[in-house]
């Protein structure tokens, strides 16, 4: 073998072993086992302690409350929403007791009136709704039925009632347009009130020859709005005038 080749080989071997040694010390253990990351980093995330025990964890010790709650309107609200993380409580129930929010400020986090909330979500005005009274003195949070059958529509449909209150339709009672069976107040989702279906219904006040007060706006039902029904352009609870 020529001398120069031996030298090149020695240099090559030294460089390769330097690379191997450098890799050994620079690349952390478990790096690249599963991908371009440390498996130990993944394991560290998996080892993170659990604080929220999950909704099944409550059943073995609190079967009655869970059973009541499972059938009530709050069935989608997990126990830990109000009572907080329960993993420590499931391990040592007496040492780590869970809080129950009783103050008036808590329920409006969900049920306070807010324009941005989806229509139909039950909301109250925290200032006007039975001031200073704790929510739980009338409503059982595990089974939050209204304490008595509501007398007015606005008890549940506050968002619509507030909108209507500042609209030109303020004087119309809800029942002028919606036939509401009594049963709707007791089982609101199974028995629904009806809605007007025809242009002629609105026309009974707003058509040109309608027997209604003169100051009410009139339209020609034959030409106005083309093929659309009235409420496809005008929101009946707050009719747009322009």
């Amino acid at each position, binding site marked *: 073998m020529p001398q120069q080749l031996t030298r090149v080989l020695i240099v090559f071997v030294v460089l390769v072993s330097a690379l191997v040694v450098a890799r050994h010390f620079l690349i952390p253990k478990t790096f690249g086992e599963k991908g371009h990351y440390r498996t130990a*980093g993944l394991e560290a995330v998996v080892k993170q302690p659990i604080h929220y025990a999950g909704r099944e964890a409550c059943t073995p010790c609190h079967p009655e409350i869970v059973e009541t709650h499972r059938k009530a309107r709050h069935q989608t609200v997990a126990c830990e929403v109000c009572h907080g993380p329960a993993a420590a409580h499931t391990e040592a129930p007496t040492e780590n007791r869970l809080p129950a929010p009783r103050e008036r400020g808590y329920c409006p986090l969900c049920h306070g009136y807010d324009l941005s909330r989806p229509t139909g979500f039950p909301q109250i005005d925290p200032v006007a709704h039975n001031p200073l009274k704790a929510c739980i003195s009338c409503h059982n949070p595990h089974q939050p039925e209204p304490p008595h059958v509501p007398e007015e529509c606005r008890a549940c449909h506050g968002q619509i009632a507030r909108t209507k209150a500042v609209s030109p339709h303020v004087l119309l009672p809800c029942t002028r347009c919606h036939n509401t069976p009594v049963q709707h107040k007791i089982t609101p989702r199974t028995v629904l009130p009806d809605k007007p279906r025809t242009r002629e219904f609105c026309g009974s006040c707003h058509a040109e020859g309608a027997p209604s007060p003169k100051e009410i706006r009139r339209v020609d039902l034959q030409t106005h709005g083309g093929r659309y029904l009235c409420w496809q352009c005008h929101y009946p609870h707050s009719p747009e005038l322009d």
Partner: protein
Amino acid sequence: MNEKRLQPEAPVEEEISEERRAFLRACALGAPFLLGAFRGEAAEAPYNPHEHLYAMGVDVERCIGCGRCVEACKRENDVPREPYYFRTWVERYVVMTQGETAVDSPNGGIAGFPAVGGERGLLRTFFVPKLCNHCANPPCVQVCPVGATFSTEDGVVLVDKDYCIGCRYCIQACPYGARYFDPRSRTADKCTFCYHRVVRGLLPACVEVCPTGARVFGDLRQRSSPLGRFTRLTKIQVLKPHLNTEPKVFYANLDGEVR
């Protein structure tokens, strides 16, 4: 001889089988409880990440902006309480008739939202929960100079906090603003889809506490799951699709104003 030997044994064998039957019956009755008790440990060993591909669905129409998800996330994951650090947060969009859109998220929505000032000129308003989108094509992973942030085999983007050098490239790179700089460890941090819970068969904390079911979590490899139903039966969108990040947080009923 044989018969003599067998005869006394036969009733003994019967007794044993009787005992065994009782034991098996007890096992069958106790199995669900045992499985329940050991679920934590048992799920860890045979957990195969290749069988899963996690994703989340968010129905914007159902979000009431109560901020319980933000609270649960902070408590579950020990996120600093200061109002700059969020793994998930809720934004309120207020679209005016004049066309301008205001977005606010006071303290991430953890204590609710102040009332919208004045209803005049208001076109529409709604809440949008946000979190890490766990992109299939994550820009944050691409920019990490040391390989401290990575996609797992089940599709979750995680941070290796012991290996992160705190250079903040990933925070800059995330187009969704989903990352924050943890002031205690001086490393980047973000939503993990509650990976530590998910591998044990629990739901992420935010999904667990969402009172209206606005958040749906599940496995894209499983059709019969709440997420499977969500992706089949609702019209879904992702945030910033033009960036080609392929997010795995799907939004239903999303408004075009949401960025």
